């Protein structure tokens, strides 16, 4: 494997998407080629820094609850538009929104 061939495989290598045999060829090339090894190392470091600096976004439990409640209100109002629901209660939260 030469440097040009490696260039096209670099990100696949970083992402662990190469077949084992090809990954081994890349490993061997990186042992011998400093510029390519440097290229891989700096990309790995960049990704590691990104993962340290930016946390995965998780919806907070309180938000999930609020959002689900809002959806259920809208569901009741929108899909059961009859003035009286089965349990006799009047649904008072109309599904208002702007398109």
């Amino acid at each position: 494997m030469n440097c040009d061939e490696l260039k096209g495989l670099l990100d696949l290598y970083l992402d662990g998407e190469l077949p084992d045999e090809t990954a081994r060829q890349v490993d061997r090339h990186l042992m011998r080629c400093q510029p390519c090894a440097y290229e891989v190392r700096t990309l790995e470091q960049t990704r590691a820094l990104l993962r340290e600096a930016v946390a995965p976004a998780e919806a907070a439990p309180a938000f999930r609850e609020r959002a689900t409640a809002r959806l259920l209100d809208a569901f009741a109002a929108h899909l059961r538009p009859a003035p009286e629901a089965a349990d006799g209660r009047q649904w008072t939260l109309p599904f208002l929104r702007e398109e």
Partner: protein
Amino acid sequence: MENVITKEGAARKVGGRAAGIQTHQETAYEQRLVARFQAGEPEALGSLFDLHVDRVFAYARHLLGSREDAEEVTSEAFLRAFERAAGFRGECPFRGWLFGITRNLCRDRLRQPRLLLLEPEEAERRADGGRAAAQMETGALVRQAVAELPEDYRLVLTLCDVEEWEAREVAAMLEKSLPATKSLLYRARRALRARLNELWEEDEEEGRGKRR
């Protein structure tokens, strides 16, 4: 009451976050939920929300930069997608609608004049002492570099390399082909590295200036 997510969709949750690509099975599962929702079952609405909320929220959070904005967009996107699904008969492309609505809502928000605040990440808020200061400095530089990238670079990087979504899933969210998404990701990684190098050099230059 049947817990649909646990019973039928457990494979979709890994470590509390939505995972992976939407397979044929997942699509069929989603269609069943939509049909149940259309038949008036509120539990199906909750299950559809659980199925997609992490993806929608993560997209909005990384694009808009603010948790509050992301929550508002997520909530509104689901409302609109459900309303559309409620009035639709036949096989409705719920997920496609939901993602499309999310993208449009985010674009609308980005067009509004707004102050972009880079929120410190949880890990840094919890850390202490000198390590925290150094970590915050590096973290702030990295986030600055990310924030300065073009929007599509920022999204593909955070969704692929932070959220660790499959590239196919990101492609669906960004409305791009798989090869185009991968190519975008590879360019984005190099752009981030280049911008980080520039910021570090500027930072070091500033430090030298102060010492003189």
